[in-house]
C-alpha cells in the first residue's frame, strides 16, 4: 500500500468522521441552547412569579386599606367624643345663662325696674 492509498483511506475516514461528528455536535449544542432558552423564558414560571407578585401586592393593599379604615374609625370616634363634650359644655353654659337671666329678672323686679 503506497502513501497515496494510505492518504486516500485515512482522508476518507477523517472526512466521513468530520461529516458525521460536526452536524451531530452542532445538533446537540442547539438542543442544549434551546433547553437553556426554554428554562430562561419558561412561561409557566413567569406566570407563577407574576401571580405571586400580584398576591403579595393585593395583600399589602388590603393591609393598607384596613389600617387606614381603622385610623378613620378612630378619628370619627374621637370627633364624636369631642362633639358630645362640647354639646354638654354648651348645655351647661346655656343653663348657667338661663339661671343668670332668671336671677337678673328677680333682682330687677325687687328693685322695681322694668324687665
Amino acid at each position, binding site marked *: 500500500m503506497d*502513501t*497515496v492509498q494510505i492518504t486516500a483511506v485515512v482522508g476518507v475516514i477523517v472526512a466521513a468522521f468530520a461529516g458525521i461528528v460536526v*452536524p451531530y455536535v452542532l445538533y446537540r449544542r442547539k438542543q442544549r441552547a434551546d433547553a437553556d432558552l426554554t428554562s430562561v423564558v419558561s412561561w409557566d414560571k413567569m406566570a407563577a412569579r407574576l401571580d405571586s407578585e400580584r398576591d403579595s401586592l393585593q395583600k399589602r393593599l388590603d393591609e393598607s386599606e384596613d389600617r387606614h379604615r381603622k385610623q378613620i374609625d378612630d378619628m370619627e370616634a374621637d370627633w364624636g367624643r369631642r362633639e358630645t363634650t362640647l354639646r354638654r359644655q354648651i348645655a351647661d353654659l346655656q343653663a348657667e345663662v338661663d339661671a343668670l337671666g332668671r336671677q337678673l329678672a328677680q333682682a330687677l323686679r325687687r328693685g322695681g325696674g322694668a324687665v
Partner: protein
Amino acid sequence: MLKVLRLNEPRAHVAVIAAVFYAIGITLWLQPARYADTPSYANLLGILPQHAWSLIYVGTASLKVSAIWRYSLRPLVVVSHAVAIALESAWLVAFIIRYLTDSGTTIVNVVSWSVYLYLSVRSALMIDQHTKPGG
C-alpha cells in the same frame, strides 16, 4: 473596527475561509501545473486530479457564501461547516502523511490547513451565539 468588519462573528470566519477556498479552487483550475510541481500535493493529486479538487473547493466556497447569505437557515450553515471541516481535515491528514513520508516537503501546508480547520471549527461553535431569527 471590530464592529465594522464583524471580526468577532462566525460570518467573518466563514468569509475568510470562503475566500481561501475560492483562491485554491480557482488556481487549481487555472494553474494545475504549479500544484503538480509542488511535492506536498502529490498524494492529493494522486487521489483526484486538479480540476476535480478545484470543483470541490469552489463548490465548498460557494456553499459557504450561501450560508453567509442565508445565515438564519441553520441546516445550510451546518452543512457548509461540515463539508468544509471534512475537506480541511482530509487535506490536513494528506499533508501530515506527505510531510512524514517525504523529506522534500515543508510543514507550511500542515500549519496552514490547521489554521483553516481551527477557523472553521471556531465559527461552527460560534453559530448558536450569533444565529438570530431573520439574522
